């Protein structure tokens, strides 16, 4: 549906590019989780898709058509639910929806039907006459989502849609995103909550320093850790690495862990057996799939980004 090729962008006066040769494919009806530390380039990428920034280098094609042309023909094929509460606090929920529905060029019955549908989808019926400024954080997030859904977009960009909400509201929003994808809407979802991405994303792209570090279907990414074993054992590191090196490539990881990429003829059981035979004390052993957070941290490293 959406093909991003070698997209680069540098803000005027900025010392380095915010996006540097980003290539990515977003498939119709799927949820793409976009992960990246602060300053990775997520917002810049989303701003391109939302039509807020023009393409400097590279291309973005929507169903084979340049995005600027596609947006000119129908600007609401892609909508954005920004991280901010992007609605008018002095207006009621219904008034906000009516205002943005008209801004989306909806008219007459279509306008009324879409407002009703979006209110129902986000379960805001009881709050239709409540001023937006009086809504709780979770309800505000739901209104933010409802507005983005008004024109029935093909692709919806959700930028940190669960910031500041309670667990119940978060669960509701995640279910809503899933339901949208099942109904055929493509979703690009950014969040700092990696477990959310792991829960709802079909595909994941990890972005850092304006580059895509990894992009693949979520199961594929998680399976990458299948032949890797993580261990923590007593004793000198060199001795441990020497022992474990017999079973594959062994290297020191974080917090005293040793990571072993097993040879095809090695098994986890044989590694554990060798440790026991050597008389070393095993404190921790993990084998199997990655979790997304570990993969993310491994790819983006641990250095703080806001300093």
């Amino acid at each position, binding site marked *: 549906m959406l093909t991003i090729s070698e997209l680069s962008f540098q803000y005027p006066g900025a010392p380095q590019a915010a996006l540097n040769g980003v290539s990515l494919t977003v498939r119709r009806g799927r949820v793409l989780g976009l992960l990246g530390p602060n300053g990775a380039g997520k917002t810049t990428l989303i701003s391109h898709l*939302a*039509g*807020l920034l023009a393409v400097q280098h590279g291309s973005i094609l929507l169903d084979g058509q340049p995005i600027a042309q596609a*947006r000119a023909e129908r*600007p*609401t094929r*892609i*909508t*954005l639910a*920004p*991280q*901010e*509460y*992007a*609605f*008018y*606090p*002095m*207006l009621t929920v219904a*008034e906000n929806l*009516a*205002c*943005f*529905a*008209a*801004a*989306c*060029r*909806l*008219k007459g019955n279509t306008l009324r039907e879409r407002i009703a549908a979006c209110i129902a989808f986000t379960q805001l019926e009881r709050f239709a006459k409540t*001023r937006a400024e009086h809504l709780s954080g979770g309800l505000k997030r739901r209104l933010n989502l409802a*507005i983005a859904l008004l*024109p029935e977009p093909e692709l919806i960009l959700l930028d940190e849609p669960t910031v500041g909400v309670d667990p119940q509201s978060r669960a509701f929003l995640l279910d809503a995103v899933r339901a949208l994808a099942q109904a055929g809407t493509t979703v690009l979802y950014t969040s700092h909550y990696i477990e959310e991405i792991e829960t709802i994303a079909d595909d994941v792209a990890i972005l850092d320093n304006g580059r895509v570090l990894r992009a693949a279907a979520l199961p594929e990414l998680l399976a990458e850790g299948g032949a890797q074993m993580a261990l923590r054992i007593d004793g000198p590191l060199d001795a441990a690495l020497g022992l474990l090196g017999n079973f594959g490539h062994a290297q020191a990881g974080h917090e005293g862990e040793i990571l072993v990429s097993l040879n095809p003829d090695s098994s986890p059981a044989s590694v554990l057996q060798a440790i026991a035979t050597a008389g070393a004390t095993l404190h921790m052993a993990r084998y199997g799939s990655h979790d997304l957070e570990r993969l993310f941290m491994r790819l983006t490293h641990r250095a703080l980004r806001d300093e």
Partner: protein
Amino acid sequence: MMLPALIRKEFLALIRDPHGLVALFLMPVAFIVIMSLALKDYYNPQTRSLPYALLDLDHGAQAQTLAEQWQADHGVPRQVPEEWRPALLAGQVRYVLTIEPGFSDAIASPATPPGIKVRLLADPGLEHALFRGTEAELAAAVGELRANAIQERFMGMVGKGANAIRNLVSAERVATRVRPTAVQQNVPAWLVFGMFFVVTAIASLFVQEARDGTLTRLQAIGVPRRIQILAKALPYLGVNAVQAALMLAVGVWLMPRVGGEALQLAGIDWVALLLMLATISFAAIGFALAIACLVRTHAQASALGATCNLLMAAIGGIMVPTFVMPVAMQAAAHWSPMNWALEGLLQVLLRSGDTLAVLPYAARLGGFAVLMWLAATLLFRRRMK
């Protein structure tokens, strides 16, 4: 549908913001009432109702005549102790008139008066215009007395000298249907100030919407920039129209009820008035949009908007009439758009000016409006990029 919906949103947001309504409507009304009452006597000096004391140290016939005439025109003098200075400095009387010994002889004598025979001693806080007015009245009264005395002595004509002198002089304000009053001056002045006060409201609104992300959202769904700007501007044209109607109504109906004089609208050129109000509104809103697209924070919006307004008002003769300013300041006033607005309105409301008379002011304001709207469009485009 898009533009009406966004305009409706502005109106709903505006009428649900009581603080904004107070700033836009009640503040200029309060200024009109307060400043018109405060300056009431400036435009119509009440020299004849000032409390005063009269000390006759001469006791002659001419002194008695002067005292009687002064009393007839200015009311009965207050009684003060012989040492009158404390009473004067305490504000119990605004001036003391002392008729020195030898006054009657000096008046009747054909020779040059030997020295000061009447003294006007005024409260140091007495307004300059009132002091000069009272001094002139006193000089005229003494002059009449002396003219009468000399006529009587040499020509045998009694009591005709004063009439003869008054027949020589006439003074009137020319060719307008309205009388200049504090209300007639202050209503247009504070109306202009109030109309320009939309600067702060529009700038704050822009900052809020930029921060909320609603401007971004509108851009993302393809709302053209010109629609976004018009959606902000048109409701405030309405606000300016309501302000104008309200301020004129306050002048006509409220001011007489609170002790002021009524604004006189009979016989004015309504087309000229509407032309001026329309150009003022376009200029004010254009200026507001330009400031709104320039600032980034609420603090900047409040500070820049209010400061620009106050400076333009101070220089432009809104707060202090230009005719009391020094020459250099009067020249500076001609550079303030608020001055063009005020002078245009005064042409209509004070000098019975017609459309042709206000055209130079309307043209200057129109040029300023066009410049500001262009600046706003360019700044908004740059901001949204």
